[in-house]
């Protein structure tokens, strides 16, 4: 297998954007191309992750993006894996470069949904569940994670205030990220007093619906060395699955696909969770970050709460989690999120993370899943 690298990364601001889905996808793609110091003609394939292109009247995004980049002849594909679309797309790009099919490819993730309103998004997101049993019985996505939260709080004697601490921490990080959607300091009291969306989760336990696009250039190491010294290596890549419906899982306080993906990625990288300097994890809801950091092996089952209470996951903690602000504060444009995590790790490991830089970081991990973790991808990156 070829050694695989990321040599360029770009992102729009996440939030409520005015430009069209194709416009923002192009903006992020051009940023990534320029950051890599390459020409579009050097790109041999495009991997486009998106879920609700239909909401902004553009599906089959790949050829549009390739055409606008001046390379209409270059093959592309669109990948949908719910909120995990970005990392799944990254994985396919990684695998094709590793296999030697291509020297350099573009992976762009994009979403444009905020103009549709809360009812539309709540309804359409519910189609990402196992609809017959979940969305089709009134379960919203906050509701599904709320069900995990209730099980977690009961099993590990944690409190809603513990969940709130995750939101407060991620907002603190997001304040330092110019591209974050919700740049606002919040308190535990703010979270507790926010409106209940799906008990026990309140509005401030939930990530926002966001627009946004992120893009990276993925290539083999020979190509990387030819163009730049400013790159990171992909040293681990893992994927996993879980029963699509929550009812199919023996334990509701763990996500099987995360464990499977993480174990594969750690094994490929030849490292253990202790070697990871920071991680961008899928905190679509506060409960998810607790579950993720346990399933990724940073903390034992049921101990993430204690770690958050002690500040271990803060920017200056033992294992900073979501230095970007995470989905909670940076935002969650679902097709872009998994790529956006890679952009953050690239920026961190190449000295471009500004005020939110994780000190002395060499190894960063991304963790992104679809729906309630029915599909998952974990990637591990190392600075050169």
């Amino acid at each position, binding site marked *: 297998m070829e050694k695989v690298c990321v040599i360029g990364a770009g992102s729009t601001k996440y939030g409520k954007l005015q430009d069209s889905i194709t416009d923002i996808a192009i903006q992020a793609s051009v940023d990534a191309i320029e950051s890599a110091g390459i020409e579009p003609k050097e790109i041999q394939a495009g991997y486009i992750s998106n879920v609700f292109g239909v909401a902004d009247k553009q599906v089959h995004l790949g050829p549009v993006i390739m055409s606008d980049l001046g390379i209409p002849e270059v093959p592309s594909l669109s990948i949908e894996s719910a909120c995990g679309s970005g990392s799944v797309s990254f994985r396919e790009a990684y695998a094709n470069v590793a296999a030697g099919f291509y020297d350099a490819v573009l992976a762009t993730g994009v979403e444009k949904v905020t103009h549709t309103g*809360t*009812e*539309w998004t*709540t*309804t359409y997101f*519910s189609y990402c569940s196992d609809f*017959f*049993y*979940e*969305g*089709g*019985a*009134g*379960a*919203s996505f*906050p*509701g*599904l994670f*709320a*069900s*995990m939260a*209730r*099980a977690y709080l*009961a099993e590990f004697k944690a409190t809603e205030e513990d969940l709130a601490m995750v939101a407060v921490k991620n907002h603190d990080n997001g304040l330092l990220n110019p591209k974050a959607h919700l740049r606002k300091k919040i308190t535990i009291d703010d979270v507790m007093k926010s*409106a*209940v*969306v*799906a*008990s*026990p*989760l309140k509005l401030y336990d939930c990530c926002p619906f966001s627009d946004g696009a992120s893009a990276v250039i993925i290539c083999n190491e020979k190509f990387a060395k030819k163009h730049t010294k400013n790159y990171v290596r992909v040293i681990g890549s893992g994927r996993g699955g879980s*029963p699509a*419906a*929550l*009812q*199919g899982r023996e334990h*509701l306080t763990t996500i099987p696909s995360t464990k499977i993906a993480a174990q594969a990625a750690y094994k490929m990288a030849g490292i253990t969770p202790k070697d990871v300097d920071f991680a961008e994890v899928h905190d679509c809801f506060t409960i998810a970050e607790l579950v993720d950091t346990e399933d990724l092996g940073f903390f034992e089952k049921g101990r993430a709460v204690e770690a958050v209470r002690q500040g271990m996951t803060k920017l200056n903690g033992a294992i900073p989690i979501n230095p970007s602000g995470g989905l909670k504060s940076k935002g969650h444009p679902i097709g872009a999120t998994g790529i956006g995590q890679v952009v953050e790790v690239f920026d961190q490991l190449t000295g471009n993370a500004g005020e939110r830089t994780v000190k002395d970081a060499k190894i960063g991990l991304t963790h992104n899943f679809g729906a309630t973790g029915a599909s998952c991808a974990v990637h591990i990156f190392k600075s050169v």
Partner: protein
Amino acid sequence: MQAAQFTYSKVYNLLTKEEFINSAKSGKVLARKCTKCGHLHLVTTYFCQNCGNKGFENVFLEGKGSVVTYTIITVPPAGYEKSVPYAWVVLKLDGVDLRISGFMANIQSPSDLPLGTRVKIAGYDERGILIEKL
């Protein structure tokens, strides 16, 4: 029992989702039991998740059990506006290793539904599988 309407069911000689819905209306859960290892699945599974076998026998389970978790929805998807607040509930069926989830009306606050509350499958309509307290 009516003959199966769908091609996939003819192939595997199994009862269908439609019959699952009919059984829910009479308070039963139509499950598929692996003929090789005995693992139980709901009606939407065609190969055993435990051993990979494709042989199943139809089993009608009593639709009674205990709440393992739930949420109370206040911001609903389209179609549920008039039901708010309501619960979406996961219950474990009595005596078997099988869980099922569904819609439960008239739940206002967590004090209305402590974990472990005894519940039953009470029907199926446009709101999905319906669950009620026993």
